[in-house]
């Protein structure tokens, strides 16, 4: 652990001559708020911030695909609505439950109940796997009916959006596996424990987002038009 030189001195916050109230000056000398001298944030926050930033970009991609979906469905005269594979309800149930169990896991970790944490983590991963299997079954069912990606625009978007979501969820599944592998190394060092919690938080945020994204896609695909 290295050291960091700090000082008790505050930054210069004197007002210059002519510094009136109202608009701040164009100086680039920093804000006068105290947080100029706050501690650099802990490492843990980095994972949470990074995750939110990553989600913004994932959200943008799905926004672009769904705006394409809306435009394409609005202008086309070749729209054939897809019959929804009923198994998608099972998918939805699975991913909703998995969000709940992961939230349990995260809270157990916060209270340092490591074995409970591992248990819920594993449950979540299994539910996630179940979701993916259910999605594959849905694709197989459609293929069996002769509905492929190129059949008509609705099927193209169905395969594309569910496929893109599945790829992202697979990433989440890998992250869960990683957490599970990590959870077996117990640690009592506060810094590492904080990092562990932050990683778990980040994965949980991601998983909830994927859950919400699925609900959104489900509604978009089968309620829009």
């Amino acid at each position, binding site marked *: *652990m290295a*050291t960091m030189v700090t*000082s008790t*001195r505050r930054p210069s916050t004197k007002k*210059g001559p002519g510094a009136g109230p109202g608009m*701040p000056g164009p100086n*680039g*000398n920093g804000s006068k708020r105290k947080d100029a001298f706050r501690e*650099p944030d802990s490492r843990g926050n980095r994972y949470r911030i990074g995750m939110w930033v990553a989600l913004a970009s994932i959200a943008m991609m799905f926004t672009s695909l769904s705006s394409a979906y809306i435009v394409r469905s609005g202008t086309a005269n070749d729209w054939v609505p897809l019959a929804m594979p009923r198994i998608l309800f099972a998918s939805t149930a699975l991913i909703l439950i998995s969000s709940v169990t992961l939230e349990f896991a995260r809270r157990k970790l916060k209270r340092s109940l490591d074995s409970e944490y591992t248990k819920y983590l594993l449950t979540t991963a299994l539910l996630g796997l179940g979701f993916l299997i259910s999605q594959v079954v849905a694709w197989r069912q459609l293929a069996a009916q002769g509905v492929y990606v190129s059949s008509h625009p609705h099927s193209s978007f169905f395969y594309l959006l569910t496929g893109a979501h599945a790829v992202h969820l697979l990433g989440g599944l890998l992250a869960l596996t990683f957490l599970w592998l990590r959870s077996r190394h117990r640690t009592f060092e506060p810094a590492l424990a904080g990092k562990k919690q932050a990683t778990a938080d980040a994965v949980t945020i991601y998983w909830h987002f994927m859950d919400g994204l699925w609900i959104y896609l489900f509604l978009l695909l089968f309620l829009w038009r």
Partner: protein
Amino acid sequence: MSETHEGVHRHPAPTGFIRKYIFSIDHKVIGIQYIMLALVAVLVGMAMSLLMRMNLSWPGTSWPILETLFPTGAPGGVMTPEFYLSLVTMHGTIMVFFVLTTAPQGGFGNYFLPIQIGAEDMAFPVLNMLSFWVTLVGFIVILMAIFVEGNQGLGQWFAALGPSFTGGSGTVGPIGGWTGYAPLSALGKIAGPGQGAGMNLWVISIAIFCVGSLLGALNFITTLLNMRTKGMSLMRMPLTCWAWFTTAVLALLSFPVLLGGGILLLLDRVANTSFFIPGGLYVSGLLSGTNPNFPLHTGGSPILWQHLFWFFGHPEVYIAILPGMGATSHILATFARKPVFGYRAMVFAIFAIGLLGFFVWGHHMFMSGMSPYSAIAFSVLTLSIGVPSAVKTFNWLGTLWGGRIRFTVAMLFALGFVSLFVAGGITGLILGQSSLDLPMHDTYLVTAHFHLVMGVASIFGMFAALYFWFPKMFGRFMSESLGRIHFWLTFIGVYAIFVPMHIMGIVGMPRRFSSFTEYEYLRSLDPLVMLVSVAAIITIGAQLLFYFNVVWSVFKGKRVENDNPWEATTLEWNTATPPPHDNFAGVLPVVYHGPYEFAVPGAPRDYVMQTDMEAEVPSGNGHNGHKH
């Protein structure tokens, strides 16, 4: 007093060559890797523009070397139209993606953002490494796109991968311009040369590039938000950091849209979907759906691709130029020995440009057949984006005003940036008006406008940055005398290349024409075409000086005597040269001042470094500044 800070030494310095220089997770090494990638890519891109100018000025001339290099693209050494068009496409794609997006952000941003905010590395070093390697894969794929032509050479190997990897007839790469408008880009081989395997690789390369850029953007944003050192409040960051940050936000929100569009385009090409391909097409003598070579398509929307592309494409313009603006502000202040004029206004202008940049994409599409009402909205918004750009220019002039300007090569290029940014940007007033787009759309006026402002001005920003930071990166100066020759030739050269192009545009010369001989009304422009070509050849030749200067200076340049050779103020000049693995040798700096405290009255020197604890800066609130 001291305290522990767990961030420091998060990863130990690597020892092996491979971990140190190749698969490095050190942001400085990654930054240099990005710059090297850009240096290679820009060489390829320049060579292509040279070939294009040769074809335009000496049409029909045989260049035997071309036949050797591209037997199908230039049979008998004479360029075919499709060869020319694939050069246009590859030049644009390589320059925009692999030069203008890599060097300013991935290169200099990667190297200097963590140092300038006082962090020991990026927030996610491994992601940072991945982002470079993913980008490099994208570059290799785009280079392969050139060589999958026909079924000879490398093409044979690609053909073995399956039917979507065989080339069209006798071309050398994809044809579609860097914008790849569907359905030309979506139809596949049936639409003619340049629409086969090369186009698939073009789409794939861009998708890969998107992923790499997203990883980078994620890292930049998190680093900046989370890892600023003590005292480095947002309003004390150098303007470079503001520019890199805004660029990262633009990349984060715009690249996913291109990625989405790219996936749709690829599906149209390889999976016979119809996102962008409408029904009832009749291409190359075949009706859609009547022949296995041309499967049935229905109902797709070609304009949808343009919306997705330009929603990305317009912010991309700012992704290219914002870092150059940041570097210019930084360098102007340093060598004018004066605080940046209107720091806050500069920050707001960067933000305003970034924000407005998301709402003007439609000005690329006035002629596309979209609603004429939305064209009006896009047009007025577009003109308003000129306001923050003008504010920046005024503030640059304000920074120079009353300065004590030192004319280093870095400063020359920064001044060149201002000149070129004005010259190139101001014609946006013409192109942004929907009415004036009626004659101007897709003419050389457009080519001139965006080359000056997003191409050359951005590159000038990068030249300035390299001459400025080279001593910190390599411990040696670049040769100032070679640098001056490089500057004069390039500065005059680019004016000679691009100003005449405005005239060509007004006369009505269309871009992306492989030959102008077909049209009577373009005859009178022949002397200008020749002038541009000669100027281009000289200017490109001058860049060899630059390459020589870089290589020579790394090994033989004048050694840097102290850590702050330019007498600058920001944190990168506060650490060893080159900076150690964790940037500050285990002791993170603490910041007490704004980034540009030059010429502070009463201070012992004419600059106050950000870390200078003792110095008194007279005003925390600079209304008094302009009193003489």
